[in-house]
């Protein structure tokens, strides 16, 4: 069962990540460097890094798995992942960069002038980050099991350890370099085998038809393809992207607001190029194996596809390339998330608690290292305990929580001068409670039937995000006295081109 080539590819990707991480240790000295790479990253490299970080297990394995099992309607997932950046571009890209904030919590504190809301946002960032880390670690488990037969907990543990070492060694500069490289590794790893497999399919005289009408006879039914589910998923992905903790950090590394916009345009192109390929694996997989072999999961269809069309070494080579790419996806997204979560645990928790227990005279990076370990250990333990629900679905729920919390905060914070601290707090609380309860109920399997309630809980964004917007606006209008005193100056800074301010 073990495929030595695939295993070698996975080991190579892990070692390369670690090597570049420790190289970063030598070039990142100051703390600001550690967090945001000194803010000197060009749009193309930054866009590669954003895309490299963003293309996660859900994109590399999950999209093909979903399309394989449920048909063409699942293409709304990659469309939503991409369109999220269009929404981010037109609503917040430049103003957010001009705010000078590099985390969501920084933005909330700066715009609303409240320490309390900062704390609330920090807690939410950690929650969403953990939520999003779970499918990355599950994906690693599925991929490693597919190529070695090892139990699923091994893959998640390997990814956690590599990410912990890389992040605590190098910080953000190395991560920018690693992420930019990871995008090109991933796009090569998914496109090259796709072209080769398509060529094999064309040359095969007995090739099965790739006609979707015959491949997915049942397409158009099932819980994921209803009109409500489609709209709710799209809304979650479009609004959720801007609220993901590891996405916003990258915008701070743009030199100014104009570059932040230009970077986002490149990101849209890079993501679109990547998403052309996962459906190829789904269609080929369907054509050659309408039923999966015993023990295989639909999320593993990308890694399985070469073996359906080819034998021996050539199949193993392609499979190895795909396994390496998949691990690049887990490592890059997980390190971006771990960095965001660890940054908050370090700043808001460790720096307050550590001196109390260990005295003032602490080694330089003890806090961030401890925070990284804790930040990864929690989701890892959860993956050991939870049965996986499906990578793209779990990721979808994390987007729904982000869409119901940070999307209203950011959109209204950037465009609406009458937003008050009370309104923003109320919106964050209502959005996070409703969306996470729905997500929790779905993940724990309380909603396996086909009822409307189950659908509303499995796809909460269509009601929870508008609810959060309405609550934020209504409470703000009811508390006009609580408009932060410097709102006008802050708004001016968010929207004024930098060239006027220097």
């Amino acid at each position: 069962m073990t495929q030595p080539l695939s295993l070698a590819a996975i080991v190579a990707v892990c070692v390369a990540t670690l090597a570049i991480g420790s190289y970063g240790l030598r070039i990142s000295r100051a703390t600001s460097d550690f967090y945001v790479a000194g803010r000197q990253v060009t749009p193309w490299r930054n866009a590669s890094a954003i895309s490299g970080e963003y293309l996660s297990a859900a994109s590399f394995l999950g999209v093909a798995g979903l399309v394989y099992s449920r048909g063409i309607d699942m293409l709304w997932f990659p469309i939503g992942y991409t369109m999220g950046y269009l929404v981010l571009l037109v609503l917040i890209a430049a103003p957010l960069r001009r705010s000078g904030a590099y985390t969501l919590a920084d933005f909330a504190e700066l715009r609303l002038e409240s320490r309390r809301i900062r704390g609330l946002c920090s807690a939410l960032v950690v929650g969403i980050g953990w939520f999003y880390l779970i499918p990355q670690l599950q994906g690693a488990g599925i991929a490693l099991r597919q190529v070695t037969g090892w139990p699923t907990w091994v893959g998640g543990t390997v990814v956690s350890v590599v990410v912990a070492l890389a992040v605590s060694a190098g910080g953000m500069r190395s991560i920018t370099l690693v992420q930019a490289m990871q995008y090109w590794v991933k796009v090569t790893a998914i496109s090259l085998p796709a072209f080769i497999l398509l060529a094999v399919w064309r040359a095969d005289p007995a090739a099965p038809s790739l006609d979707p009408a015959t491949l997915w006879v049942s397409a158009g039914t099932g819980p994921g393809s209803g009109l409500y589910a489609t709209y709710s998923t799209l809304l979650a992905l479009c609004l959720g992207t801007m609220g993901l903790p590891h996405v916003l950090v990258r915008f701070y590394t743009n030199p100014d607001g104009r570059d932040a916009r230009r970077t986002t345009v490149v990101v849209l192109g890079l993501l679109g190029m990547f998403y052309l390929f996962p459906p190829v694996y789904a269609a080929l997989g369907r054509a050659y194996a309408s039923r999966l072999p015993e023990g295989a999961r639909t999320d593993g269809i990308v890694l399985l596809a070469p073996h359906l069309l080819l034998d021996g070494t050539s199949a193993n080579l392609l499979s190895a390339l795909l396994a390496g790419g998949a691990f690049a996806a887990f490592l890059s997204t997980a390190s971006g998330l771990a960095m965001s979560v660890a940054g908050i645990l370090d700043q808001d928790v460790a720096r307050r608690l550590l001196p109390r227990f260990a005295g003032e005279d602490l080694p330089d990076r003890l806090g961030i290292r401890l925070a990284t370990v804790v930040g990864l250990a929690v989701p890892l333990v959860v993956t050991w305990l939870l049965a996986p629900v499906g990578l793209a679905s779990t990721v979808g729920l994390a987007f729904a929580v982000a869409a119901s919390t940070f999307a209203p905060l950011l959109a209204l914070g950037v465009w609406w001068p009458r937003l008050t601290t009370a309104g923003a707090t109320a919106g964050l609380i209502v959005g996070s409670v409703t969306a996470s309860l729905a997500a929790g109920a779905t993940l724990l399997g309380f909603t396996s039937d086909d009822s409307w309630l189950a659908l509303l809980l499995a796809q909460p964004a269509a009601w929870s995000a508008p609810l959060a917007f309405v609550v934020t606006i209504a409470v703000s209008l009811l508390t006009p006295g609580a408009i932060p005193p410097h709102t006008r100056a802050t708004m001016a800074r968010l929207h004024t081109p930098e060239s006027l301010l220097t």
Partner: protein
Amino acid sequence: MAEELTEQTRLGDVYVAGLMRAQLRLSASVLLVAALLLGAVPLALAIWPELRLLRVGPIPVLWLVLGLAVYPAAVIGARYYTRASENLEATFVDVIDKT
């Protein structure tokens, strides 16, 4: 003049409010067009399921639209927005510099 923008003078407020309104109008119209174009597809499929069978040669149109065409369309929309938004800012800078 630049200081008036950040230091909350009446005049600065008026200018910034004007820029913000123009930018918000632009953003809202891009979002609206995108939402209408994208949102129409699932609705059309629900009303006319036979659209799924529409093809250009051997390839179903739906695959071409959802798997291919949306991505360049998104890039074109994003480029249009970025240019329009930079133009609004350039006009704003001109006005401020003349004042």
